[in-house]
């Protein structure tokens, strides 16, 4: 143990104060959601008589439960698809030798240069002509595969030794079985990082769900919250309650998966 120097203590205290400032807005959001409307504009943080009335009211007055279901379905289905296809593509590009491999890799990587904002208008036109507007599939189809995931998975599959795959070939496994049973279990850290990114990315997505949905029964949580808050106008305790409901699940996920999330970001930051 090194002796504590005064500089260290000052740094620690400042960091702690900064950290408290960082979560202050979230604390105010949660505290206000537990306040009665008469107490909302008072400066003290903690509610005198905490109540869950706002939560009950918002859950009966709006289809928040339904929005959760939509967000959850969209995020988990697209995540499953991204995990499967991006790892299959990444594996193929890392471990197979065939003419056109570099071209395919560059082509898929070049899609990372195309901003979503440029695609939403053609997607909308496409969804309109195919009857996908205002459907669950309409919300999901743009996110079924991602160039970023292909890059990440390929990087990891490059590190899987060829001898292992050849041994599996000797044992008579077909190529899909080799991918599924031999290679995939070796890259689980990358898979969990990709799963977290894909899920959170879809959970918080706003622009495309806002464009493609029009009936409230198909809103995702962010879109539903935006429309609800617009309706509530000045009922700030209700808006804070809606914001809390939208935020609490991600906070829980963070508490559960903190280590994976942070190491996932570190991983991609170093590989990128």
């Amino acid at each position, binding site marked *: 143990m090194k002796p504590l120097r005064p500089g260290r203590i000052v740094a620690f205290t400042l960091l702690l104060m900064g950290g408290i400032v960082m979560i202050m*807005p979230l604390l105010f959001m949660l505290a206000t959601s537990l306040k009665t409307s008469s107490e909302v504009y008072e400066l003290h943080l903690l509610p005198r008589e905490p109540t869950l009335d706002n939560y009950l009211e918002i859950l009966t007055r709006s289809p928040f439960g339904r929005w959760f279901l939509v967000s959850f379905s969209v995020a988990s289905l697209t995540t499953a698809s991204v995990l499967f296809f991006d790892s299959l593509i990444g594996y193929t590009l890392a471990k197979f030798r065939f003419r056109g491999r570099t071209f395919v890799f560059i082509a898929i990587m070049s899609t990372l240069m195309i901003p979503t904002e440029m695609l939403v208008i053609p997607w909308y036109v496409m969804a309109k002509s195919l009857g996908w507007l205002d459907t669950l599939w309409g919300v999901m189809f743009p996110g079924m595969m991602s160039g970023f995931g292909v890059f990440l998975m390929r990087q990891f599959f490059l590190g899987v030794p060829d001898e292992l795959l050849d041994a599996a070939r000797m044992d008579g496994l077909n190529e899909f079985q080799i991918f599924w049973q031999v290679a995939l279990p070796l890259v689980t850290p990358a898979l969990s990082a990709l799963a977290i990114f894909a899920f959170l990315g879809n959970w918080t997505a706003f*622009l495309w769900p806002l464009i493609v949905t029009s009936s409230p029964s198909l809103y995702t949580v962010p879109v539903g919250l935006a429309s609800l808050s617009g309706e509530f106008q000045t009922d700030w305790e209700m808006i804070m309650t809606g914001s809390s409901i939208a935020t609490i699940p991600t906070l829980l996920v963070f508490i559960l998966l903190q280590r994976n999330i942070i190491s996932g970001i570190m991983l991609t930051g170093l590989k990128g």
Partner: protein
Amino acid sequence: MSGLTIARRQAVWAWIFLALPLAYFSLVRFWPALDAFSLSLSKWNLVGPRRYVGLANYERMAADPVFWQVLANTFEYLLLGLPVSLALSFLVAYHLDRVQTGHGLLRALYFLPHLTTATALAWVWRWFYQPAPVGLFNNWLSVFGIAQQPFLRSTFQALPAILVPAIWAALGFQIVIFLAGLKAIPRSYYEAAEIDGAGSPQILREITLPLLLPSFVFLLITTSIGLLRIFDLVYNMTAGGDGGPLNATKPLVLSIYQSAFARMDMGYASAQTVVLFVILLLLSLLQMRLLRARP
């Protein structure tokens, strides 16, 4: 397939695995991207016929003072936000890296806002900025006897007021990236420098900063891209999501959204997306250049 050579069999399997993905990327990425270019040369309201108009949309853009204001706003978000957020996150990460007690807790505090939905954050901050007696900030100001501020209602203050939560929410991600970069620097470098009698500022200047360059470049680009594409916060923090007051906070993406989905002006909206594409492309080229130049 048993009659094929190993190389042939590999190629067949590869194309089987890639068939569906290639169809997907062609139909949902490449074709729409080309369509965006083609739409930018057309006039179309989604209902009537789609008409080719050459560069008319771009000419209209160049002559539109609102477009220039939107572009100026977009770069104001970038030029104000980038230095502040990188400086803050580096400062926190640099000190956090040296703290052992409570490291995980502190990191969690800084990281939490990054995970929350921008829509929820936007409404929380919108509430903070309201006039007294509603808004938290103005209530505090009046406690300390400081003049009330208009924040989101002022053409001058509104854009920085929206930028604050944008910086706040991105900080956690940047800190984690910097921490990863700092951890990758071998401890022996620091120890050698200390033995040679180098002080903290010198170690920071000659070891930490140069070795952290890749993290800086990565964050420079990702943060810039994030700021240039700002939308969720502005949409949720301005009245009616209109980028007001008087377009003072309207960024390029909100302008695209309004042109396309409020005015059904698909051609003009697409021309603006092409501008966004070109800006982001130049940024990516800059990144490649910076990374190639690194020692």
